[in-house]
């Protein structure tokens, strides 16, 4: 049984991939409808997968609370907040209801923007700690970064109008060369990895060879 089911999985992987790839190149209504459905199926399966996550989370924090492990009061906060969101969302029946909107914009939005903005602080500490001209490569990285900063901040143009020009040239060069090569390489690398997954040579992303 296990063997058969694993073969079904390998076959499904190859066939579904082929359908979606062919749908991109061929003009065929059936293929298109099938590809759209498969895409939706993935969304549905992923929605079910969240249950595994929730179970895993509740298991860990429940254990923390019952065993009075370190940080157990925080586990209570976590589980209660989760419950409040689920109940509010399901009772009001919509994530755009005023009540739901209030708890969302009071908790999730400020924490999100704080963490997002914290990048600016970490850029500062990384600038001091990590941008060291230890090698010629590091020097190139550092010089390019400084010129781009002088291009982006209006102060650069005030110091000298040449600075943003140099920054602009570096930016154009970077997008036309290094970025281009990176993107091409990523495209080719993804194709190679994808092929190996499709034909069953690489089973790790499926959960290992077992």
């Amino acid at each position, binding site marked *: 049984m296990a063997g058969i089911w694993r073969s079904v999985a390998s076959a499904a992987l190859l066939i579904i991939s082929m359908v979606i*790839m062919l749908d*991109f*190149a*061929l*003009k*065929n209504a059936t293929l298109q409808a099938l590809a759209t459905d498969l895409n939706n199926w*993935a*969304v549905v*399966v*992923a929605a079910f*997968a*969240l*249950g*595994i*996550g*929730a179970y*895993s*989370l509740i*298991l*860990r924090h429940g*254990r923390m609370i019952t065993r009075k492990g370190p940080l157990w009061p925080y586990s209570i906060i976590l589980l209660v907040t989760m419950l409040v969101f689920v109940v509010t969302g399901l009772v009001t029946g919509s994530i755009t209801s005023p009540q739901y909107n209030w708890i969302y914009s009071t908790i*999730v939005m400020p*924490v*999100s923007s704080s*963490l*997002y903005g*914290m*990048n600016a602080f*970490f850029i500062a*500490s*990384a600038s001091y*700690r*990590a*941008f060291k001209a230890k090698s010629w490569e590091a020097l190139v*990285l550092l010089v390019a970064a400084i010129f781009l900063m002088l291009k982006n901040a209006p102060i650069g143009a005030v110091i000298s109008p040449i600075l943003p020009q140099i920054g602009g040239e570096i930016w154009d060069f970077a997008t036309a060369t290094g*970025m281009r090569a*990176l*993107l*091409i*390489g*990523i495209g*080719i*690398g*993804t*194709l*190679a*990895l*994808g*092929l*190996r*997954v499709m*034909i069953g*040579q*690489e089973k*790790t*992303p*499926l*959960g*290992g060879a*077992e």
Partner: protein
Amino acid sequence: MLMAGKAAWALITFVFSALMLLMLYLSSKKIYIPQIREHPGVHAISEAVGRAAEMGRPVSFSPGTSSLYDAKYAGDTAAALTLLNAVAREAVKSGSKLIVGISQPTVLPVAQAIVKTAYTMEGKAEEYVEGDTVRFYSPDQWGFASSYMGMMYRERVAANFLFGGHAAEALILAETGATVGAMQVSGSTNVYQLPMFLVSCDYTLIGEDQLAAAAYLSPDPAQKGTVFGQDLAKLICVVLIVIGAILVTAGSKILSQLLAS
């Protein structure tokens, strides 16, 4: 019937795939086994894990915030999972505690299976704690980031691995790792976040480096054949670019038009 504008796509995908599969075949039949330059970051994995074991501090791993069915970073996630396989085996062997932080629910069952297998194969199945070795944090990038940060501080991790599709939380995770003194190896195909990793981590697998690492980390040496196939595909791109540029200079836009057909 081919869709307009997709002929070039179909041809290139076909030619590249054929090359990669041919090279895979040649190396599996030992007709031509390519010598692949391995990234120093991959060798650093055992060094980092070993260091953590010596210090008696844990190893942490994040396979990214992109899902398994992401339309852009699925390959990134898949590569991160093969790297997780390598890291988990090293960690279990060295006896350090492993913590895998998961953001996407679709990645969770796969990561659980990989890590559980790694423990079972070393005969340490009882050390795998359900819900704790592989931890689900939050599908939201910032919910995940805050948990992963807190975990790195509280557990004082000594080795931190960040692979797969990370978004704007990349620098936050990497700088926190640097703050707690962890040795860090990272990789991504998200070109906007790569500079963040490169600056903050000890080793970074840039873009394709990470995807290729997935091949040569495989126990089957024949997989290196596809990496050589990748090289040939890139050489084709180089030739196309050079010839195309010369043609355009001569006033012919034929190659550009062909690629758009």
